[in-house]
């Protein structure tokens, strides 16, 4: 199958630059699968995992929080505020962050920014899931 170039870029630098046959990502409007020759598209992403699949096998798994995906005929770019490859996620730290976020949501204090805490929890859960590889 035809392959194309995928970039994942964050403010702290390039996270991934490789070739693949299929990119699967969670856009705000739903799951999105991109193959070579796709129409130029821009779509905002949810907090979730991005999967690269080549030859029917998953080659890369990346936790992405926020941002959007840009498709060009020969290239896909994902611009995210934060992105981490599954193998470079510190699982213990991610779990710790999840616990903290849950704690904060349960406290139900008035001064807790509910929406922000919820987003933090989502990000933490996403990272834990991606790191464990269960999606």
């Amino acid at each position: 199958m035809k392959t194309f170039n995928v970039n994942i870029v964050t403010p702290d630098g390039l996270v991934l630059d490789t070739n693949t046959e299929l990119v699967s990502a969670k856009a705000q409007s739903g799951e999105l699968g991109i193959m070579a020759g796709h129409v130029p598209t821009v779509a905002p992403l949810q907090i979730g995992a991005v999967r690269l699949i080549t030859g029917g096998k998953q080659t890369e798994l990346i936790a992405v929080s926020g941002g959007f995906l840009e498709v060009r005929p020969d290239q896909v770019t994902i611009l995210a505020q934060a992105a981490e490859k599954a193998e470079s996620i510190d699982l213990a730290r991610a779990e710790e962050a999840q616990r903290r976020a849950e704690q904060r949501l349960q406290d139900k204090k008035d001064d807790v920014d509910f929406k922000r805490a919820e987003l933090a929890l989502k990000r933490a859960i996403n990272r834990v899931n991606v790191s464990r590889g269960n999606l």
Partner: protein
Amino acid sequence: MASLRDIQTRITSTKKTSQITKAMQMVSASKLNRAEMNAKSFVPYMNKIQEVVTSIALGSKDVKHPMLVSRPVKKTGYLVITSDRGLAGAYNSSILRSVYKRIQEQHTSQDEYVVIAIGRVGRDFFRIRGIEAIESITGLPDQPSFADVKEIVRKTVDLFSEGMYDELYMYYSHFVNAIQQDVTVKKVLPLTELESSGASLSSYEFEPSAEEILEVLLPQYAESLIYGALLDGKASEHAARMTAMQNATDNAKELIRNLTLQYNRARQAAITQEITEIVGGAAALE
């Protein structure tokens, strides 16, 4: 004339000072290296996001978003990026002088503007003059990651959306090279100064719609503009401190040279005087 001992003490203490400034210069040089690398690794992200924002904003003229529209200016926001520590030559003072001048020229009362300060020196500067920054962050690391500044950057953009101010200017020092940094003023919001970079503007398919994409994209774009300026400012700070410390070391060396000369003269004078005394004494005995 100072005694031999006094001069000796001054030489020793100046030497110690020069050792310190020399060390600080070397620390800044290595920090500058890393800051430059950080700024460089941010460039692809900035270019990409700029490209997409421009092509959406210019490609579809009918798209409307509050961040793209200039509204009548009742209140101006100034985002001032300075360092936490001094000893960086004119780095902080030239930025602050430029903002303060602008504020005094443009505004007659404090209701017309607000200040957001990044860095302790800037915050304290305005506090002394009776202007309390509405948001401030201090104690940023020398190599700030995006996560470190996300909070204040997001708040800055949110305050514009909420109508706290109607335009936002950013004052920072642009890193040209190790010996030149320029104070730069940039209008961040509203985003009216989007220009096409001349590259082919691709016409995109929007999923779900252009408006909803701008909703996500524009705040992210404004945030990255600010983060980019911050990285630029950090590189300038280290460069300015490096130059300042270099000058201090050079000055100390010059001082030591002069003092050594003075010391030798004084020593010579003392010897001459002693000889004259002995010769005088011997002559008196004959």
